[in-house]
């Protein structure tokens, strides 16, 4: 074979092999939720539409990718934990409002209704909250903490997420300041989070790890992560603080630039249907243990739902976000 022919052949084969898988799907979904893959699969089986599921990693990494894409977003649908960040994306016109009729079709529970944003930036598909994760090998049954305030008894051995890196962690911090008072809350944390090596963790997985390896006896963590560990047989329990817990909704948003609005609507319809909700529970990882927000849908066995919620004042929380995050970073990170 001549050089020319080999060259041409190699080049075209290379080009072909890379370009081949690039056929466009009906929907592109960006997410950081355990159940998104199984749900997309069930959706494909039911409707015949194809979904490309893109999962860069954690919520932060997915957000970073969306931010880098800026005004030229490549997704049709985004599905993440956290309401505030969805509102910010809607305000930047990265997301468009979810059509009103999509909400009207759904039989919301009271909890579900309370999570629907006025801006329609996202559609809540489920929720979770923050609880105290306790290692039962390290803490005896009669020594269990019952409130955020009790955590100071475990000073130096409390694992927590950095609100600068975790949306849910910021909602917990703002919720704590709301229920315990800002100054009292700050003093409480200063007395409790005395070990910087475990008070600024980047993910719920790391809080789990700290509690399971014994670096911490208790952790402040998303409750669905704790139930997933309990189901896996790990020696931990979830304790809900007596002050009340703030809800952390999972939201589904629609890209402002989507060319596939019909498919997106069908996806929302499927997710909120009985089949979709069943797919959302078809696994044992953290996010499968969500709290349902649709009437008639039961949570996974073992998942606690009788929780005393407090409603977070979003205005106060977002007004102080930069200030409180910085305060946390200065005090408990590095």
């Amino acid at each position, binding site marked *: 074979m001549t050089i020319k022919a*080999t*060259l041409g052949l190699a080049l075209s084969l290379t080009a072909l092999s890379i370009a081949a898988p690039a056929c466009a799907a009906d929907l592109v979904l960006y997410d950081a939720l355990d159940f998104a893959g199984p749900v997309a699969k069930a959706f494909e089986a039911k409707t015949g539409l194809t979904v490309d599921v893109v*999962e860069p990693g954690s919520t932060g990494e997915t957000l*970073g990718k969306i931010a880098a894409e800026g005004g030229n977003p490549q997704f049709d649908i985004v599905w993440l934990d956290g309401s505030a960040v969805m509102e910010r994306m809607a305000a930047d016109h990265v997301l468009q409002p979810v059509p009103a009729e999509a909400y009207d079709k759904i039989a919301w529970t009271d909890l579900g209704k309370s999570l629907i944003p006025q801006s329609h930036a996202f559609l809540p598909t489920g929720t979770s909250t923050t609880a105290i994760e306790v290692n039962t090998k390290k803490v005896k049954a009669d020594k269990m903490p019952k409130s955020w305030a009790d955590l100071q008894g475990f000073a130096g051995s409390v694992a927590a997420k950095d609100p600068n890196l975790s949306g849910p962690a910021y909602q917990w911090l703002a919720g704590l300041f709301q229920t315990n008072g800002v100054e009292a809350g700050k003093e409480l944390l200063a007395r409790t989070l005395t070990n910087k090596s475990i008070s600024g963790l980047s993910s719920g*997985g790391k809080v789990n790890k700290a509690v399971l390896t014994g670096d911490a006896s208790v952790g402040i963590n998303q409750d669905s992560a704790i139930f997933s560990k309990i189901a896996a*047989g790990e020696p931990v329990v979830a304790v809900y603080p007596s002050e009340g817990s703030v809800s952390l909704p999972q939201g589904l948003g629609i890209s402002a630039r989507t060319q596939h609005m019909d498919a997106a609507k069908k996806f929302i319809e499927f997710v909120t249907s009985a089949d979709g909700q069943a797919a959302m529970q078809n696994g044992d990882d953290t996010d499968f243990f969500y709290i349902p927000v649709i009437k008639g849908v039961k949570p996974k066995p073992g998942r606690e739902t009788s929780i005393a919620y407090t409603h977070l004042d979003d205005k106060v929380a977002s007004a102080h976000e930069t200030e409180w995050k910085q305060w946390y970073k200065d005090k408990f990170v590095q």
Partner: protein
Amino acid sequence: MVQKFDAAAGGIGASGWALRRLPALARLGGPLAVYAVFALLIGLPLALVLLQAVMPGLFAADGAQALLSAEPLVRTLSSPAVAGSIQHSLELGLLAAFTTTVLGGAFAILVQRCDIPLRGAISLVPWLVFLTPSYLKALAWVLLMSSGGYLAQLGLLPPSLGASFFGLAGLVFVHTLSLFPLAAFIIGSALAGLGAELEDAARLSGAGPLRIWLRVNGPLLAPAIVLSFIATFAEVLSDFGLASTIARMSSFGVLTYGIYAAASDYPVDFPAAGAQALVLLALVLLVVVADRLLRRRADPHLISGRARPARRYQLGAWRWLVFAMALLVAFLALILPLGAIAARALTSTLGHGLEPGNFTLVNLDAALSLDTPANDGLMRSLFYAGLTAIIASTLALLLSARLDRSSAVMRTAVLGLSLGAVAIPGIVLGFGYILVWNRLPGFRDWPFPHYGDGSLLVMGYVAAALPYCLVVILSAIGQLAPSLTDAARLSGVGAIRRLISVTLPLILLSVVTAFLLTFIRTVFELPMSQMLIPQSGPPAPTLILKLFSHDRDGLACAMALAAMAAAGGAAALIWYPLKRIIAFGRPEGIPAASGEPS
């Protein structure tokens, strides 16, 4: 095969093929095309990220503004946290580069020049260590050293040691064990090229071994030693695997983590990420330039047509001590971390540790079954990695051949840029790629490569791997005596044929080394895989990381084990037959051009 290499390189840049028809243009166009590829792969994406340190409004959500502002730089540099990170990064980088170069150099010398038992098996150790990605090693050491970890569960870890591990000491320890292969490859390939003539001459003149190493081999190896120091320094500075685990748990903030934190939110704090990336790059460039200023002597050209292999030292009884030390390194760098990962892969929970009832095969089964997402990801990664390795090693070969003959300034500039690229965390380069290929008019609508396709991911992988390939091939090509190609040139042989028929055979093992390094690293490359994840499906590293961040480290460890076995097996399948062919094709005893396993 060679033509195929060429095709891949031509396919990425301007068409080198068309240019070859016009000899006059080709002389100018050749190097220009290569430099253009380099600028496109690394220069432009990097520039877009760094530019944001001084033009914070460049990619603002509410309309781009090209206004210059020193505010983000001042804000970033005046922050005590960033100042602390810079200090930490420097301390860690310098210390770990020193210990890594010492360990890697010693390892290369012992394995190549001493008659230690099981030499073949031991020379495989650096490769196997290199096979394990840093984020897995970091996780393994966390599993081992944390207060409730495996070593503590086995009663082998005094609490004081566990506590001091999570700090500078532990970071230097893990970095050294994890990066010594890089130093061993660089110094080893220079060592292989030394041959025996100079040493024999010194010995005939009455010099003892110590004197030979201090006065002959030492100075001849100095460029490789310095290169190893700089490369490991850059590598430590850009590391994210340890930065996000051990460093994070020790409150030892480093620059890469600062960049990650600034880049992992909506909206991204681009100015802060850009400013910290700028600091990182400046630190590495400073070291490269300082090296060039201090060491003006030209690098020695050692491989001539007359090279003879060096003699191995007979150590006598001492060889058992050396052997034990090599085994200790292998145990700490490889067996212990892999053991921790295997233990985690084979147990269902972390909290119950190594209790008998806790063992399970569920994770391995899930990772190895065909037609699972995990298996698909693995196959995808092996394909992308193979393609990347072909393109990157060919590009590096072409570039090295050009650079070897160009001015010292150009050589320094490109070496500096590529080492700078090593130091730029992949996440920054990944961001740059998104900015170029999804935001910049012209690139945005270009069909191939295209953001969201596998093509751009491969391009990103090539950019991440090119600096390594350059370091490996440049150090081999730098040793060739110019007389070899001069002879061909004077006989009227063209540049491309000279490269293929004269240079390539002499450094083929180095090129294959670069190919395999790239292949293995790419199978596990994380940041590019995350940022440029193709819509058609994720590669293995993204899946492994997702499993970790979603707290399924048992399955993640099982997948990582499978990926290591697959990548290692594929590499061995390429390496050993090729080695046999080369050994067959040349008289026995011509030194291999690099620190490959024998």
